[in-house]
């Protein structure tokens, strides 16, 4: 491998610890606040242009639900349509298998370099690292992915992986690192976005013109026709999809849609939700291979890697509707303050908080903490173009963490135990429920608190510090409402039990 070593998500701390660090990073906070607030407002404007947004959203959700409920049917159709159009279809049950397939396909071409279109699926499976181990260098060609790769960094946003970097940081990364990977940055590079884009154009052009193999993902796959769709802005996607001889697309099995006509819904929902544009600059569609136009060889690698486990959960299944627009990240107050890295996977933000614990399970401390990385404010659900009820799934997954229960693990039904570290909380919850279910006990507790209220400290010890470190405690009143009612009104109450 010619570039520097890759950063990885492995061994990251649980969300609260990671977020505790990032909330104190003032530059990160400022970068994220600026970027997310900019796009948030623009999205609202772009969406408001369409009177029928709610109906498009409902149709998008329904099309995805139809697909998911009959995924076996649509995958078979897709496979035969892609094959009939000259493509070769491969199936990967997990990340290792997908990486092995892609590595072998690249090796078979005799090449040692590939150009890549930004792809969440290949980020998820850690393809670049796997290729590097096999002596194959993968060049990321999306501007933000390039920033991440050159900076030996990790993506922190679905649409804009380098959202945590501001223009001056990007300038420094380009100036210092481009030479190690190819054409150096121009002398005197400024931090003007147009200059930075120009530097990326020059740096990557030699890679595009010489590339023999490209790796991509896809936004949509049409079962009926075998057509794949890549939605992008910069043209790096077009370069990768049309110039090399061999194209390998790694795509999650949930990305299939039934018909070509169905694209009329998603090509309206996605750009407005994602980059807040009426339409993104470039969308490429291809069906197998074409004579003299584009790659002579096309491989489609269909990826499971936990998707069938997600599909098996009738509540969590709706997460597979996701079209990776990132609108939920851009409105999320938790994402804005914690940053994408705290989510410890390729999928940050609210969608990551429901997708990662389903794809990977809830066994690690990090994955078990993700369903709690939300105040349940519901802003994500409101903007989701395919109406994924993210708060509902978060609560559903919290239950899986603290209560355990039936799940699907690599395709097999299993019953998992509650995650570790919740014993004290469980006991407290049970005790609280018992008290709340016995109003006389509750009343005794309230009266005790009222009688001792002068003695209450302003700051709590132990776990209570999590509250009182930053917030005053409410004063306990002299008399609960219940007692006030009893004292003044009880005779009026016709329904005393």
């Amino acid at each position: 491998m010619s570039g520097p070593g890759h950063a990885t998500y492995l061994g990251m701390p649980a969300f609260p610890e990671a977020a505790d660090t990032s909330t104190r990073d003032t530059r990160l906070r400022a970068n994220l606040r600026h970027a997310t607030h900019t796009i948030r407002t623009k999205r609202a404007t772009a969406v408001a242009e369409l009177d029928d947004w709610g109906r498009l959203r409902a149709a998008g959700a329904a099309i995805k639900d139809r697909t998911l409920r009959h995924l076996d049917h649509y995958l078979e159709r897709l496979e035969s349509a892609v094959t009939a159009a000259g493509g070769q279809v491969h199936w990967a049950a997990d990340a290792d298998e997908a990486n092995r397939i892609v590595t072998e396909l690249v090796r078979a071409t005799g090449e040692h370099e590939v150009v890549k279109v930004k792809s969440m699926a290949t980020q998820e499976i850690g393809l670049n690292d796997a290729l590097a181990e096999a002596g194959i260098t993968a060049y990321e060609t999306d501007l933000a992915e390039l920033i991440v790769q050159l900076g030996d960094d990790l993506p922190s946003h679905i649409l804009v992986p380098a959202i945590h970097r501001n223009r001056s940081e990007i300038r420094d990364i380009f100036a210092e690192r481009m030479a190690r990977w190819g054409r150096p940055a121009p002398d005197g590079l400024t931090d003007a976005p147009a200059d930075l884009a120009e530097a990326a154009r020059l740096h990557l052009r030699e890679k595009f013109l010489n590339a023999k193999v490209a790796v991509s993902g896809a936004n949509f796959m049409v079962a009926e026709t075998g057509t794949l769709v890549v939605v992008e802005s910069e043209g790096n996607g077009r370069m990768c999809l049309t110039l090399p001889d061999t194209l390998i697309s790694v795509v999650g099995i949930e990305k299939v849609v039934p018909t070509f006509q169905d694209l009329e819904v998603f090509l309206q929902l996605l750009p407005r939700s994602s980059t807040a544009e009426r339409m993104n600059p470039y969308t490429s569609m291809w069906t197998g291979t074409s004579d003299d136009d584009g790659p002579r060889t096309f491989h489609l690698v269909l990826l499971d890697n936990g998707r069938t486990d997600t599909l098996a959960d009738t509540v969590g299944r709706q997460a597979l509707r996701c079209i990776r627009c990132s609108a939920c990240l851009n409105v999320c107050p938790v994402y804005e303050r914690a940053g994408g890295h705290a989510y410890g996977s390729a999928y940050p933000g609210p969608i990551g908080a429901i997708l990662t614990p389903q794809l990977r399970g809830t066994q690690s401390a990090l994955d078990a903490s993700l369903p709690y990385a939300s105040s349940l404010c519901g802003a994500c659900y409101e903007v989701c173009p395919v109406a994924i009820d993210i708060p509902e799934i978060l609560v559903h997954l919290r239950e899986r963490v603290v209560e355990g229960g039936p799940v699907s693990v690599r395709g097999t039904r299993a019953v998992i135990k509650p995650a570790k570290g919740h014993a004290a909380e469980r006991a407290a919850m049970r005790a609280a429920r018992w008290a709340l279910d016995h109003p006389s006990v509750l009343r005794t507790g309230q009266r005790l608190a009222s009688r001792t209220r002068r003695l209450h400290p302003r700051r709590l010890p132990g776990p209570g510090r999590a509250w009182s470190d930053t917030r005053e405690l409410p004063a306990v009143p002299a008399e609960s409402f219940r007692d006030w009612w009893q004292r003044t009104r009880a005779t009026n109450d016709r329904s005393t039990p």
Partner: protein
Amino acid sequence: MRVGLFITCVNDTLYPHTGRAVVTLLERLGVEVGFPAGQSCCGQPHFNTGYRHETEPLVRRYATAFRGYDHIVTPSGSCAAMVRDNYPRIGAKAAAEGRGQELAEAAATVVPRTHELTEFLTDVLGVTDVGAYYPHTVTYHPTCHGLRMLRLGDRPRALLGAVRGLDLVELPGAEECCGFGGTFAVKNAAVSAAMGADKARNITATGAQAVCTVDNSCQMHIGGTLARQGSAVRPVHIAEILASTEEHVW
């Protein structure tokens, strides 16, 4: 019309004056209010933390306590949303787990009768001018569950707009969560505090004397943060403003 007040555990224990304001307000509007003593907590802290099974007795308790009331009124957007959105889910899941329809039926009996206070005033009683007087500058923070689950929309603002003497000032970033989120406030204390700090700064910057919400659980967090920041802005529940009159400024 038999109206039962669901006070909520937070108001019962920590904010009884909000409950007294609701009673004062409703009685002024000619509503006879009952308070079934069998009531307790809606179960939201348990449910939202993942303890669905611990929630079930509280669903049952709520349904039993309010049997016979035409309407159930609560001064809490999130508790009303808990009943309306989550009780049916809890019932459906219990049925799916083979434990019969009892919980689902209990949920179905309370969902249509449960109203957040401002909804009850505007939709059931059909009033926006409740005859209140509150001579202060107030900013309004729409709490998330009221805004996005109950879809309260302009109801609270319309009610505040009709209050004599009240000067309503817009809150920048109003629709952003304050960062309370129940157990989120302690499980993710750093992010919760950061959200609260931003919210409190926005509130103070309005120059208002009071910040009004429909939910005292959010207010506990907002008010606690304002106080820690040394802000003079006072948190006040909408019921207290609406209960206030020339004769008795709340």
